[in-house]
C-alpha cells in the first residue's frame, strides 16, 4: 500500500467513524458509537501494518512532542482558569452545581499536571538522567 492509498483509507475511516457516531448520537446508541470507534481503530492498525512507506520518523516525533507540549500548556491553563472562575462564581451566587463543575475541572487540570510530571520523570530517566 502506498502513501496515497493510506491517506485515502484514513479519510474513509474518519468519514465512517464520523457518520456512525453521528447516527449513534441521534439514536442515542452508545454501543454503536463505541463499536464504530473500535472498528475504525482496528482498521487503521491493519492499514498501517500493510503500508510499506515510512509514516513516522524523527521529524514527525519532534513535531508531535512540540505539539503535545503546546496542547498541554494551553489546555491545562485554560481548564485551570475556567475551574477557578466556576468555583468563584458558584460560591458568589450560591450555585452548588457550578461550584461542583469547577471543582471537577480543577481536578482534571491537576490530573493533567500529574500525568505530565510523571511522564516527564519517566522519559527523563529513559533518556539518561543520572539523578
Amino acid at each position, binding site marked *: 500500500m502506498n502513501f496515497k492509498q493510506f491517506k485515502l483509507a484514513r479519510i474513509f475511516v474518519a468519514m465512517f467513524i464520523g457518520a456512525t457516531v453521528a447516527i449513534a448520537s441521534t439514536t442515542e446508541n452508545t454501543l454503536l458509537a463505541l463499536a464504530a470507534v473500535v472498528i475504525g481503530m482496528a482498521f487503521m492498525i491493519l492499514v498501517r501494518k500493510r503500508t510499506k512507506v515510512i509514516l513516522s520518523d*524523527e521529524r514527525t516525533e519532534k513535531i508531535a512532542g512540540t505539539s503535545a507540549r503546546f496542547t498541554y500548556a494551553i489546555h491545562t491553563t485554560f481548564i485551570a482558569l475556567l475551574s477557578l472562575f466556576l468555583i468563584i462564581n458558584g460560591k458568589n451566587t450560591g450555585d452548588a452545581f457550578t461550584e461542583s463543575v469547577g471543582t471537577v475541572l480543577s481536578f482534571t487540570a491537576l490530573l493533567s499536571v500529574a500525568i505530565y510530571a510523571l511522564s516527564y520523570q519517566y522519559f527523563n530517566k529513559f533518556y539518561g538522567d543520572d539523578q
Partner: protein
Amino acid sequence: MEMTNNLKILRAKHNLTQEDLAEKVGVTRQTIFAIEKNKYSPTLELAFKLSKLFNLPIEEIFKYNVHQE
C-alpha cells in the same frame, strides 16, 4: 538558521529523488525536503546515515555557521 547543507547537490549527483533518499535512510520524504530547505536539523543518527550513504564525512554534508557577536 545556523546549519546549512549540500544535500540537494549530493542527491542530484547520485541521481536520487527525495523519495529515494528518504527510503534509503528510513525517513519520510518531507523530512528530506525540510533538511534541504534548512528548516530541520537532523539527529546525529540520521546525519551519520547520510554520511555513510554518500561516503562523505558529516562536515562535508552539513555546515555549522558560527555567528560571531
